[in-house]
Every structure is written in C-alpha cells, then in structure tokens.
C-alpha cells in the first residue's frame, strides 16, 4: 500500500469509519511488525505488543494531523509502547545481545529506518509466492516455524552452513525481486 493511501485512510479512520480503520491496520501491519522486530521484540511477545500499539494508534487517531506522514507517526507510537513493554517486563537486558544493540544503533543513526520506510511490503508477499518449492520450504521453516539453521538442517537433511547459504540466496533473490517490482511502480 502506498504511503499516501495510509495517510488518506488514517484521515478517514479519524472520522470514525471502521472499514477505513480495518484497511489501515491491514496496510500498516507488515511495517509495524518489521519495525517491532528491528527494535528487538521477540516472537513470543510481538503479537501482544503489536496489538497494544494498534490500540494506541486507534485511540490517538484524533490527534493525527492530516498532513503528517503516517509511518513515522506509527513508529513513534510503537517506540513508546515498546519502551513501556520493556519497563514492565524487565526483559530487555536479558536478550539485548551485542548484535541487537548494533541494529539499534543503525536504527538510531537512520539508515535502517530509511531502508524500512522505502520497503515495498506488498511486493515482498508476491515475490515470496514466486520462490521455488525448496526455497519456500527453507523460508517457511526459518520464519513461520522459527527454526534456526541447525534445526532446519536436521529436518531437511542438509548441513547448517548449507541452509544459511540457501537463506542468503533466497534473500538476494527476494531483494532483487522487490526492487524490480518497486522499479515497475508497485508498492
């Protein structure tokens, strides 16, 4: 969904149009989850946090300014809710690895936020459908079933490094597919 559409829906939703609220949530779902993962929210918590963010956005819609870009606003709300989540759960330190800190630094500095902003979420879903069966299977095990490369390797009878190579290739293929879709005007 184009960013302008999100803004238009947010304005409609402000007026109490529930169908627009629903479309808005469908439209920002992927952006929100991707952002929460980047912030380091874990799989086990991400649904609850995302629901809280979405409720908070719904409650705050009255304050949404029509000219305001929607996604940065959504991310600000998501940051606030996520901070509260960490404060209440005291979980952050437990899983804040050095790598996650590095990602957060990149996020603060801007480049990751920029890359996320411009990411064509709709195109990614289409591109995933076009993968070969084997690539899809590896991707499913990694993301849908949350397995790491050694468990995927056990399941598929491969080596861990072989699985990681396949994953890296799948990422490359998806990246170029998404970029070409964006080049063709898809969002």
């Amino acid at each position, binding site marked *: 969904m184009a960013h302008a559409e999100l803004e238009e829906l947010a304005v409609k939703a402000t*007026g*109490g*149009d*529930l*169908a*627009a*609220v*629903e*479309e808005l*949530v*469908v439209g920002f*779902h*992927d952006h*929100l*989850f*991707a*952002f929460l*993962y*980047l912030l380091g929210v874990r*799989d086990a918590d991400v*649904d609850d946090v*995302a*629901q809280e963010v*979405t*409720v908070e956005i*719904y409650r705050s819609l009255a304050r949404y300014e029509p000219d305001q870009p929607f996604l940065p606003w959504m991310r600000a709300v998501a940051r606030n809710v996520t901070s509260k989540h960490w404060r209440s759960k005291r979980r952050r330190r437990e899983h804040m*690895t*050095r*790598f996650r800190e*590095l*990602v957060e630094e*990149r996020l603060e500095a801007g*480049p*990751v936020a920029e*890359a*996320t902003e411009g*990411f064509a*979420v709709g195109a*990614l*879903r*289409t591109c*995933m*459908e*076009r*993968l*070969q*069966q084997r690539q899809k299977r590896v*991707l499913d095990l*990694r*993301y*849908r079933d949350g397995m*790491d*490369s050694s468990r995927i390797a056990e399941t598929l009878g491969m080596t861990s*490094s072989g699985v*990681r*190579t396949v*994953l*890296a290739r799948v*990422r490359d293929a998806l*990246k170029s597919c998404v970029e070409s879709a964006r080049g063709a005007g898809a969002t």
Partner: protein
Amino acid sequence: MVTGEFRDLVEKCLEGSATAEEMERVEDAVASDPACAAWLDGAVTLDGHLRAATRDRSSFVLKFMERITHGTHRAAFAVRAVRRLRKERVGARRVRRRASGFVVALATAAVLLAAVYVGGAFDTPEQASTVAELTSVRGTVNVANGKDIRQIRRTALVRPGHRVVTEEDAEAILRYPDGSTLTLGERTALTLADRVTAKEMMLRKGTIVADVAPQPADAPMSITTTTAAMTVLGTKFTLSFDALMSPSLATRLEVESGRVDISTIGGTRSVTVATGQYAIAGSGFELEARPLKLDMTGFRLTFDEEFDDLSVTSRGPNGPGGSRWIAHTPYWGDYGEARFADPHPGYPFTTDHGMLRIQARRDERGTWSTGFLSSVDTKGRGFAQAYGYFECRMRLPGGKATWPAFWIKGGEELRRKDGPLRTVPVYVIAEHHGAEGNRIHTEWQVYTPEGPGPKMDVSHAVPDVTDDFHTYGCLVEPDRVSWYYDRTELRSVPAPDGNDEPKYILVNLAMGGGWPLDDDTPDPAHMFVDYVKVYALPDVE
C-alpha cells in the same frame, strides 16, 4: 568488502545462534567497511519484513477489530447503528420518541440480565443464561468462552459471550427458543454479544444462512460485522463476511424473503434489502439494494458458440470467410508462464459433443504451452459488441498455477504498443487462480492514452468452480456493469469511462499468475467450456 564469511555470520546473528565473538566480528566489519554496513542494513530490514510477512495478518486484524468493536465499544456501535437506521427512515420527532424507547428497552434488558446473573448462583449456568442450542453439528465445530475452547460433538447450549467457530467443511445450526435458526457455514466465527440481549451477535468471518421467526419490533435480532450492522425483524437471508475485496473485508447480505435493514458501520448509509435483493457493505462498495437474480426477459441472442466444432486459426483473419477465433491475444503480446500454442488437430483445443476442451501441458523439454481464444483478430475483425449480456458456461481445472479466465475487452487499442488512442475498458468476468480454491476474481480496469487508469479487482467466494459447470456472466449496460455467477449477481458498478467501446471476447487457460509452475501444477490441466453466448439488451440494440 562483503565476503561470504561475513554474510554467514550475519545470518547466524539474525537467527540468534552467533557467539559473542562472532557478533564482535560483525560489529568490527560494520565499523570499518561501509559496504558491510550497507549490506547489514539491507539484511536486517529484509529479515524484519520477512518475519512480518510470514505472520497471519488476517487473524491479527480480526483480533484487533473484535477488540475495538466488542464489549462497551461494540454495544455503543450497535446502539448507534440502530439509531442511525431509524433516524434516516422516520422524521426527527419520531426519532426522538423511538430513541428514548430504545434506551428504555436497553435498560429493561439490562435489568433482566442482572436478574439472570444473580439467579445464576442458584441454577446451573446452562439453565440460567442459555440463549440458543447448537444442533446438527457436522465436522469440527468449537465453542469458545474466553480462552476456554471445547469441541462440540453433537449438541451444546450456547450462552452470551460464547463464540462459535466452524472449521473447513464443517457446519452447525444454532437454534433459538422462538424457532429462529442460524446455519453457520464452514470457516465461520460468530460471537454472541455478552450483554443486553441474546440476539445481538457479531459475525467475525464466514457465512450464516438465517431463518428468523418474527421478532418484537422493539427488540429485533441484530447482527454486526466490522463493516455493517443489520437489524432483522423476521426473514430468511444469507449473510457472508469475507475478504470480498482482498485484502479488505466486506459484508454481503442476500435476502430470500422478508426485509433486513443494513447500515455501514461508522458510515452514514443504510438501506432496506427486500425479498430477492442483496447488498454489499465494505470499503470501495456503494451500499445499495439490488436484484439478486438476472432477469433475461427481452434479451436477444447475438453470438452463439456451442462448440459443436471449433473455427480457429493462429492469427486470423476472423470474420466472414475466415475463422471465428484466433489463438493469440489480438493486442500486443501474449502473457503468462505458458506460451499460447498455435492450434493443431488435437492440441491445445478439442471439441467433443458440443464441449470445448483447452489443454495446458508440459513437453519433454519442460516447456509449458496452453490455449487462448480471441473473438477478434489483430485488425479487429470478428465479433465485438458494446452492450449486452456476455456469458460462458465452463468448468475450470483447479490446481496450483492454473489461471483460466473469461473476459471482454474494448477493441480500440489493438496492436498499438503505445496504448490506446481512446479510453477503453477491460471487464474480467471470471478469473480463477487454481491455488485459491473456490474463489473467483471479477475486475474492471480502464486503459487511457496516458497509461493504465483506475481499476477494481474483487475476489468472491463461490460454492464451486472445478467440480461442475457454472455460468459466468457480465451485463454491460450503458450506465452500469454487473457480474454474475450462475446468473446470481456478484457485484455491480457504475459504468467506467470508455464503456461504449465494442468489446471482444477472450477465453483462455493461462498458467502462472503469480504462482510458479512446478511439480504441484497439474499436467496436463484441462478447462472445459460448454458455450459462449452474447445477448443484446432489450430495447437498446
């Protein structure tokens, strides 16, 4: 430089299996090499979006919508929706009287509910607050009460606050003491309101067929979805709430007998849907009551292809002295993952007892080919008609990556690589992605000299496409375009620009459409077409 080793380390970091030392190496590489830093930014962004895209978006959205439209929010919506309906239908003075009457009714119901709740301490909970009985359960049917979920084998008593959920191929009948029944189709979720009255409910997804006994005027049955609110005083109707316009949800109401008031939630429109009518409420749809069935009185047959034999050439000419169909698109270029084959005896088209078979198959080199029919050739010779009813009776192949379609297209832009000189429309009467099961797409789009113009693609759940033959039709009138499945209207829109352009017919079994062709794709795949017919409108042509 982004080495294979660096990529492997990042992969390990992303999946959480990297050691502290490995993370440090990634950190060092990112700090010292901008290429590594840029690569990492792309990798973490894609990783986040991949995780997001593999989540069940519709469950999340439904859960959220239920949250904001349930409990106090939901009751307020129901009250507002009913008030709005009444307000629009009667004068301001009567509205005040009725609204206050409604508040009294609510207050009375609340008192009754409180009495029932207190009484609950003495009776068994089932006796105290049962509102309906779940009977004739087939397949997997669950009743949920908060987090407590139990599977129902035969019958169950259902109380306020319960949610009834049917799974694939399942069905259940909810029977009320007054004789009203609600039949829940497969993959349906219905929540009974947890306050005020037993006959307030929310259809979260799926289909219900309702046969409602006459209701008291001041306490009608009320059903809401996230896009519509309905008040029912006694009638037979079918209600489905579905991803009608993917990805957003819409409510479709079909009334067999009686009347149902339907109102858009949060919007301002409401209509009464009477016997033999239907309405759709959802983003992108105009809420209006329309006839459910097509009335063919006065229509005159102008094109009759029964496929007793097939007159087809590779590229024409079509028309008098030539063939009736060509086997490629008449505009610029074919499409899909399988090439459209030049016709030869026995392939890709065969006719048998008035039935056309189009075959898609893979040859020994692994190349797919299939069949395509167009009623005009590249110079526009052949059959085209501006207005009328275009219908095809067919059985579709199903299976991954099959992509059959019956569609009509304005003919002006034939063979022009740069697009049309005038605005022309395309109406996809039925397009089927085999992997989607019993769903078909209807679509309109206009092409302007400046490029592709507005469009609207709608995905409809239908009873069947692959087991039996069904008719798929499109009624093109000067001011409206309407789509039909077995002559039941699926949807209708005001005619888009360029609607007066004569339209030619396309019937094809394309392959692909977003799905890869692989070992799960049926080989060969067959599409059967019984006939293609076009009628002129009464009194117009």
